[in-house]
């Protein structure tokens, strides 16, 4: 891989346990992963394999039970809640499957949200948001409210929000899950283009053909990375017997 560059995201022997004793669930068991600038990594695996937990921990929405998580060289374990929130405003962008946008805000305002929350003046934030929307070719949506947009348009606005400003890590949790396949492809093409421009991205997906857009696929099962590969024919990854 791109070993020369510094990893934007680095997970080192990360464990995450939900619940206690009888209800204890091992969501992640010693996962290590590094994602470099310009790289799009797909995370696959069956339900309950820990895919979503991996993403929430990577962005500091959740904390590992043990192990370290570094974003752009900063150890999240050393940050308090406010510090992790600041990190999400400045370095990490999230894209979820649905309910991505705040319905009370327009597309531009949604895209400008991280900047405004970070204290950037409203006018400047709006400018940056319009630029991000423009790069993604959806400037005309700027003043629409979420319930005036289609699902695909909403998802594109969510990506704009994830990359607005100088953020270099996008964490996407099944970003195409709620979309029809054609719209889904378009959203992925957009994400790919951002990565080619230098952003690092981790995308959880359960569709093999989406994984084809990735530079690398990480396969999780029961909280353990069972395979990590350069893009093979994706179907091979789904068959453990082919390991």
């Amino acid at each position, binding site marked *: 891989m791109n070993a020369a560059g510094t990893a934007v995201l680095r997970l080192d022997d990360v464990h995450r346990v939900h619940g206690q004793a009888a209800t204890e669930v091992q969501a992640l068991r010693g996962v290590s992963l590094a994602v470099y600038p310009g790289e799009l990594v797909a995370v696959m695996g069956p339900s309950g394999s820990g895919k979503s937990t991996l993403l*929430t921990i990577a962005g500091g929405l959740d904390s590992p039970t043990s192990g370290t998580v570094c974003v752009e060289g900063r150890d999240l374990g050393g940050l308090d809640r*406010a510090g992790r*929130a600041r990190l999400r*405003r400045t370095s990490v962008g999230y894209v979820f499957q649905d309910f991505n946008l705040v319905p*009370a805000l327009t597309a531009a305002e949604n895209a400008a949200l991280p900047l405004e*929350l970070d204290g950037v003046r409203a006018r400047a934030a709006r400018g940056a948001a319009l630029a991000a929307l423009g790069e993604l070719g959806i400037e005309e949506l700027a003043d629409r409210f979420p319930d005036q947009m289609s699902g695909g348009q909403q998802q594109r606005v969510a990506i704009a929000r994830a990359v607005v400003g100088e953020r270099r890590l996008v964490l996407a949790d099944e970003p195409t899950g709620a979309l029809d396949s054609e719209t889904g492809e378009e959203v992925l093409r957009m994400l790919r283009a951002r990565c080619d421009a230098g952003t690092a991205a981790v995308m959880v997906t359960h569709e093999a053909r989406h994984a084809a857009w990735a530079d690398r696929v990480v396969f999780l099962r029961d909280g353990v990375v069972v395979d990590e590969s350069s893009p093979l024919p994706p179907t091979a990854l789904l068959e453990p017997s082919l390991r």
Partner: protein
Amino acid sequence: MTGRLAARWALPLRVARREAWRSKGRSLLVLVLIALPVLAVTASAVVVATTQVSGAEGIDRRLGTAQARVDVSPDIGRVVQGADPDQGALITEGPAPQRPLDAADLSRRLGGAPTTELRQSQARFVSDDGAAPVETTELDLGDPLTRGLFDLTSGRWPSGPGEVVANQALLDRLGLAVGDRLEPAAEGGPSPRVVGVAESTTVRSSPVAAGPLGSLGIDTSGLRSWLVGGDPVTWSEVRGLNRAGAVVVSRSVVLDPPPADQLPDELGVTGTTDPVIVAVVALVVAMVLLEVVLLAGPAFAVGAKRQARSLALMSSSGATPAQVRRSLLATAVVLGSVAAVGGVLLGLALAAAAMPLVQRLSASWLGPFDVPWLPVLAVLAFGLLSALLAALAPAVMVARQDVVAVLAGRRGEARPSRVSPVVGTLLLALGVAGSAYGALTRGSELFIAFAAVLCVLGTVLLVPLVLALLGRLARRLPLVVRYAVRDAARQRSRTAPAVAAVAATVAGVVTLGIGASSDALESRSTYQPSLAMGSGVVTPGWSETGEPLPGSWEAAETVVERALPEARTTAVVGLGQDDGNSYTEVSRPGSSVPVLSSYGSALGGSELVGDEALAAAPGLSAATLERVRTALADGRAVVFADQTGDSDTVRVRVERVEDDGTTSRVAQRTLPATYVAVGAATAPAQLLLPPELARELGPTRTVGLVVDGAPIGDAQEEAVSEGVAALGMQGSFYVERGYQADDEDVIVLLVLFALGAVLVLGGTLTATFLALSDARPDLATLAAVGASPRARRGIAASYAFVVGFVGAALGAVVGLVPGLAVAVPLTSQGADGGWTVEGGDVVSGAPPVTGPFLDVPWLLVLGLVVVLPLLTAAVVGLLTRSRLPLVARAA
């Protein structure tokens, strides 16, 4: 029919019960909102019913063990009375009989029933500071008929005419103990020894004394009363005694009143309720209902949204809109009935618990614990009704929802109704027009109250439109405020009722506040001092026939000197025959019109001799005083007049009213006079005379004692008051302190503010925390893009501010209209035009037209519109947990 009804409601009610249990917080909120007014009204209804001792409840207190009480007055011919003459239904007529009934006649008429005489009055006895009024009763306390009127608590019953019993309040007030003697304040009365403490079964906290006939020197001026034993006194016996001039309170008649058709026709229709009171009660009930519905509405709106998906699923499996509606209304039925029943039970418990405290504050003994079931049932129905009304709008809306959109998981609110803003504008216009009409028409306060309700209803319907407009204007606001405004605009079904509740409250408070403070302004502006500031005057009391009570002015002077050694006292001398039976007319020669339309007699009389008292008269300029002094020194009368005229003489006539109503002239003189115009101010007297002219009109005497030259404190005022009250003249002492802002005025505004604050706070907090629980997914999104934990607080505080501020601002604007309208009739006087006087002469000085006085209590308005919402926002900010929901993606 009932079977079908039960079948239709069984399932929704079961679901509603579980749903209410599942969302405990919201259910509790609704329960509290509905139960609180129910509780308050129930508790106060019980306390009022218990405090009011009805005729039947109090019969033992009034009659002891007797069957009846008979009052005979010497100058009454025939009595027309209702079942209970003490309740107002009483007419007397006809010439007095030759010989009034006596005890023997009474006993004979009632089949040889035993009788015992009873005398009741009020007398003053000497206390530490002077004299105190005491309720006195003379009766044979050993007679079994009187048992139950007094309860002996210590000592013994009187055994002879020199002994009495007194209640604890009397001993405390007069500083006496058992064994001491009561000293009458008037000369010549008996001074009996107190041999026991006995409480009256009626009066609790004011002084009471009772003893055998003659022990307290009661003079009833011919009125005689008896308690009668024996058989129950029937209604026909009562009517018979009435014909003989007796008023009868019969135990059996009071307990079992005769039917209305047996009551005398002369009494007319009794027991009708004043329609104005009915209207006021209806208005108050309507406003409280509106308030409760608006406050509880948001909770049901949020509940409806939470259930939207399951209700859409019901629709998709074939439920009719009616069934969908019913399932939400069932929640209201469940919560409403629990709240209403719980509120009533708690209200009863609260009333029972509060009774000892109420007794301690009450001057009379309370009746037995009394639950007025009819009002309580009405309150119960009110609770249920308010829940149903609060759930109605959300239920109708959820039944109309787009099933497909809901099932597809799309959020978003229906477009605002086009009809309700139109209706709202119409109602508001009607209300404004009504207020304007009411302001211009006399005696129309109630009309304005209805107009005010129309204004409020109109505003309630306009709130969604206002919110939608605000949402469009929010673009330039900071992020959290923008979010709050837009969310408020989008989620109108839960925001609008809360904003409307705040608006309705503030409108009401502002209306009442303007009324109250305009009233206070009128009192302040039209205040006429009776004396110069800081002066005092002692004046004698009046006998029942209207004569000033005789008394020693030296004694009064001594009382003043003891309390105010520094002060100067000046005797005010006036014409002697100015008393209840004679009057003095002052007019220009050749005219019968009085020169003065109104004048005071604060100095003790209105025709004064000399200028000694003038220093204490208010509002006379130095120049005027000088003119008055010069005129008096020149031997001229000084006439205070509405207007000065060209005349330099005055006609003074002293007329006496004889017992048969005819008048006779005592004196008439035309005197040289100087006129002093007083304009709209009240003149201190109508006439000042130099001594030599006064002698021509008859004798003179001291009518008052002016006290000035030293500051008079509250304690000194009280000492002088009590001291002169104890004298033979039973005098009173008045000190001019200028306009005293009634504590009440301030208290009214404070109570209004507190009431407004509680409701505004309640409405705002309700809406805010419902909004927060609704905003969970949005907050999660904000957290994911890096909102700091404070953002939740900021949003909550902004939302609270938006609800509070928008509601209060709307309410204040709307409240101004009926508030100013009601202040006009409330503070306008004499607007009907001037007087005319018989004889064709039009009085030159018509009664002064004053008002209207308009005063908007801006501090109150500012407090409600700005301070209160900010305060609420701060409270919300502090109370809100700052933690954001982090991973709440599943919606």
